[in-house]
């Protein structure tokens, strides 16, 4: 497999994987939680790195994935005190945890591979250099496996718990009355979202993950009024943004992740126009 194809697939898989939890975050009016999580997982990675002292250890992934729900929990704890509003609580908790991570990196992990550029912007162009080698066989880029498994995990999670995610997002009270614990579902979704963020952050950097989680979901929301279709459209936009982003970046010789994020923005613009035209046509029919 050529390096260019590997990068394209990683880009497409990552963006598509992000779009799935993004749909539910958007519908639950928690879009900015994705921004919060993508930052604080860094602290999870750093703390896990200190514990095991190995950058390729899977514990880093676990540490990072655990940090997402912890962030959400801390934010809820703070907003429950009613000293600040919920959005302010988000704005206080995540920069605090993120800055702690930044300080720890600069102070103690200066020699390690955790530098600020790769954290903020990712390093998709270098992804093919990191190989998956088992028993001496080169099985392709590692990123391909990471992004592919994330996409698979998210598809399976959503397919298995579709009914539960739907009812708890639409009407958490009804879900609770029926025995579908909103707390369990909420934190499962947060765990999946932060796992996705960890995988995505290696490829596209922490700043842009939010774009891949929210923009495809928000576009799909404007195009369809059906939750299943919304999920498919969001994934499709994610895949396309990954592919188009790669080619644009090659053409212009600029950042791949940046171009991918731009494409999600272009799709969103298209969805806004689509929505306006559709609405006009519908109101025309009524008259």
């Amino acid at each position, binding site marked *: 497999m050529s390096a260019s194809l590997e990068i394209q697939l990683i880009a497409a898989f990552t963006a598509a994987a992000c779009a799935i939890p993004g749909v539910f975050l958007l*519908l639950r009016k928690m879009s900015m939680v994705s921004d919060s999580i993508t930052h604080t997982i860094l602290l999870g990675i750093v703390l896990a790195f200190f514990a095991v002292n190995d950058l390729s250890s899977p514990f880093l992934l676990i540490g990072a994935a655990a940090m997402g729900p912890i962030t959400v929990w801390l934010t809820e704890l703070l907003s429950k005190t*009613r000293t600040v509003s919920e959005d302010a609580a988000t704005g206080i908790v995540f920069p605090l945890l993120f800055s702690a991570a930044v300080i720890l990196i600069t102070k103690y992990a200066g020699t390690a591979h955790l530098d600020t550029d790769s954290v903020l912007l990712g390093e998709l162009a270098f992804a093919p250099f990191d190989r998956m080698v088992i028993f001496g066989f080169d099985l392709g880029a590692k990123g391909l496996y990471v992004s592919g498994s994330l996409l698979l995990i998210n598809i399976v999670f959503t397919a*298995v*718990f*579709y*009914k*539960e995610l*739907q*009812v708890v*997002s*639409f*009407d958490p*009270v*009804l879900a*609770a*009355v*029926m*025995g*579908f614990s909103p707390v369990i579902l909420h934190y499962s979704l947060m765990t999946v979202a932060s796992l996705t963020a960890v995988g995505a952050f290696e490829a596209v950097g922490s700043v842009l993950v939010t774009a891949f989680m929210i923009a495809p979901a928000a576009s799909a*929301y404007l195009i*369809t*009024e*059906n*939750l299943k*279709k*919304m999920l498919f459209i969001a994934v499709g936009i994610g895949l396309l943004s990954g592919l188009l982003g790669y080619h644009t970046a090659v053409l212009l010789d600029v950042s791949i992740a940046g171009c991918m994020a731009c494409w999600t923005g272009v799709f969103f613009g298209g969805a806004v126009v689509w929505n306006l035209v559709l609405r006009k046509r519908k109101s025309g029919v009524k008259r």
Partner: protein
Amino acid sequence: MNNSAENEYAVEVSRLTVAYDSKPVLSNVDLELPRGMLTAVMGPNGAGKTTLIKAMLGLIPTVNGKISFPEIKGKKPCIGYVPQSESADWDFPVSVLDVVTMGCYGRLGWIKRPRREDREFAMECLKKTGMEDYADRQISRLSGGQQQRTFLARALAQKADIYLMDEPFKGVDNATERSIIDLLKELRSEGKTVVAVHHDLSTVSDYFDWVTLINIKVVASGEVRKVFTDENLTRTYRAANVGNFI
């Protein structure tokens, strides 16, 4: 005590106290609501009506007290819930039929998906509320009355024994109000219990069998013709102002 006899109450609440930020919203509530009847829960704003419903559903932490739903023919009763229609996200990407089908989810349990017969049953429930023509409509394009009917249809799909409803008549036109009350009476004729938060004093005697007047504490609870008196109403609604100053 005769334990073998079927319990005649659908809900038993004893010494229930609920507080938000150490301010009591419900204080020492003792209630027994009869089975197979339509009960109105009434009181001024801030009297704790919605809180009472939510506490019964186990949705909020209580400071003290016990709520129980006695068994019906040896089985735990199934509880249905109709929230205030504005509490839902009406921009959510689902159709009317999708929402009503959610009523079946509780019976399905985790992971199992609704099947064709569940959707057909949901459609029947829509018919009962006169909403079958709107089955495929996205919920954001419903009027207030249609939203309320959709929620009622969903409650029917729950096949509950006891229905707890938070202001089912709020924001609906007269025609819808009539059809809702017909539906509630039909439920009663099937032996179901309905407990509804209600505001309109003028319709209580027409619509309901039993009335519970609350204002943080229970002022009176019993058959409408016995309890729904000027004296009790004055105590319920005037105490509201007094209560706020204490």
